[in-house]
């Protein structure tokens, strides 16, 4: 029996640590185990994936998991992100654990063959840790669903979080959070089946049919690449307090501050990445932050 788990999160949310906690937990529980993260330019907010395989026999695969038994989705704004595509390849009879405040039947309505579990991990993390770090919470949800023993799992949480340098107090709080999530859920008897796929290889002559020198000559195209969905927190201007001093405009590293026709400063939410430099710099504290709509 092998279980393949794929975590989807955003840089900074703890997807990689979650995959390591689960890897350790399964290892502690006597399984063969393997974990692996994949990410681009280590950018906070960018889609990240991480993988854990565990098995009672030797693991003879490696790398990206195309057909997961379980997916852990740490940020529900990723569901509609075509690059992240978190449910892709989820096996028949598989399970998706989603960090969300939405109802589970509002997610993945077209996959009646999979179990969808909705948990408000961000809410629990904010309450118990004081910040939206989700590694122990998502790992706990997946470990419970996968049937990993509690003591082995909690030992893995402490071990991994000490390794990344968390204080003993934060380790303790995370273990408490993990216990709370673990206790909320029940193990699933997973009998999964891979979705059918059809391989079509493209011959080299088709790949190279042009000259393959794609110079990009269209100007202004970076505006097309919306980066607003990288945000975990969203800056909000209180127009009662704002005097349009334009300090935020000057500091914004993404040119995501603009001036409206009425002369008021405004945030371009399509491209604001949620770095909160504007909030830090605003001399009148006229900018506050709210949790992004996706996860809260």
């Amino acid at each position, binding site marked *: 029996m092998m279980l393949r788990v794929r975590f989807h999160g955003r840089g900074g949310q703890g997807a990689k640590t979650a995959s390591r906690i689960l890897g350790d937990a399964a290892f502690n529980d006597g399984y063969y185990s393997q974990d692996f993260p994949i990410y681009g330019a280590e950018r906070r907010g960018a889609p990240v994936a991480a993988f854990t395989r565990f098995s009672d026999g030797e693991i003879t695969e490696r790398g990206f998991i195309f057909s997961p038994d379980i997916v852990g989705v740490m940020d529900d704004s990723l569901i509609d992100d075509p690059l992240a595509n978190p449910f892709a390849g989820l096996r028949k009879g598989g399970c998706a654990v989603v960090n969300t405040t939405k109802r589970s039947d509002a997610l993945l309505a077209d996959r009646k063959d999979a179990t969808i579990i909705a948990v408000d991990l961000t809410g629990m993390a904010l309450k118990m840790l004081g910040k939206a770090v989700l590694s122990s919470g998502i790992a706990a949800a997946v470990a419970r669903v996968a049937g990993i023993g509690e003591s082995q799992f909690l030992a893995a949480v402490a071990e991994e979080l000490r390794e990344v340098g968390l204080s003993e107090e934060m380790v303790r709080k995370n273990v408490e959070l993990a216990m709370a999530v673990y206790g909320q859920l029940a193990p699933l008897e997973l009998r999964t089946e891979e979705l059918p796929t059809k391989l079509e290889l493209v011959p080299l002559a088709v*790949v*190279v049919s042009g*000259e*393959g*020198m794609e*110079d*990009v*000559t269209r100007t202004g195209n970076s505006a097309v690449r919306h980066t607003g969905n990288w945000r975990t927190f969203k800056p909000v201007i209180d127009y009662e307090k704002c005097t349009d001093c334009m300090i935020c405009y000057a500091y914004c590293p993404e040119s995501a501050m603009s001036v409206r026709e009425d002369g008021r400063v405004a945030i371009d939410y399509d491209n604001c990445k949620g770095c909160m430099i504007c909030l830090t710099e605003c001399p009148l504290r006229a900018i506050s932050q709210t949790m992004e709509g996706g996860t809260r």
Partner: protein
Amino acid sequence: MPTEGDLADDGGGHAVKGKLLTGNAAAASAARLARVDYIPAYPITPQTEIIETIADWVREGTMDAKFVQLESEHSMMTAAGTASLAGARVFTATSSQGLLYAMEMLYNVSGWRAPMVLVNVSRALAAPIVLEPDHNDVLAARDSGFIQLHSETCQEVADMVLLAYRVAEDSRVMLPAIVNLDGFYLSFTRERVVLPDQKGVDSFLPPYQPPHPLRASQPVAKGTAVMEGFVYSYFKYNMHAAAVRAKKVFSEAARDYKELFGRDYGPVEGYRLDDAEYVIVMSNSFTTLGRQAVNRMRERGVPAGLLKLRMVRPFPTEEVVALLKGRKAAAVFDQNLSPGSGGILFPEVAASMYHVRDRPQTILPVVGGLGGKQLTSDEMTSIFEEMIAVNSGSKPLAPMFLMRSEEMAKVKRAVALAEGGS
């Protein structure tokens, strides 16, 4: 140093006197004839003479180009590639450690599809340190996406530089090119060179017209971060296809070149191959020694021949197959060494022949001439003797690593001296 007056014209193929030029002077002269716009440079022995010559010409006004000395070969290649993207015809030169220092940028410049020409004057790589040539430097760039043309003579140096621009700038190719010549054995060797006339070169090599040059008012992005393996694969496969096309483009250009200047170049060159049963495969300046060995074997009645690799990238597989099939035995002379494997070109030649039904029964790997180690004519003919002995079954096949007994005695004396003996 040649002057304008020496640029002899062979016009309709009439005999011309030519001029004694070093390989370095031939390279510089060809760059001037190609009307290059920009030469970013950095000195290194044995290449320095090329850029010194060009710097002098630019200073005295006999070459209309911008010459800049950068602070390293890495910067030099970066400047070369970006200037080429801006639409300049770019020339530069380096050797050995300099090429390796620029290596990171070689892959970028080819990925940008910037068709500049780099002359590499081969020098063995440290350590230990030596200034004379072998081909580990240029073959380290084997997989970079640069077209590679290797020269046997000073004449070829000049001709390959001009052909390299024509091939690199062809819209079907758009890849940079390296022209290789051996340090000392060509770089500082003077021999007769007939330089093509400027008018002929101008018709052979019209001004470079890039499809989307970098212009301040017309932004264009090249070689952007793609961040996905499949997009990367798409661009790399296309570079491969362009490099493969470069062989055909080279042959077309060589036809024009022959018509204009009378000299005929293919991706490979055969020497006394018609009835040859034993063939040595080699490249660069020591090929001349190989020809001499062929002649000596012929005098002894042995049907010997030689196959010279002029084009190393793209690898001329079809030509190698056509000229080696049906022979009794071949030897691949590698003036380079991949420690733990052997010569670098041997596996390429052997792989080309593997699926050929009537391939040579023996393909003998030979390593020699490392660090410019000299080769006597007996040493060269010993390669044929070994080929014959292995092929007849009187000796088992084992790679040859050339070293003469008197050289070994000198090594031992030097080691003893270094250790405090006498």
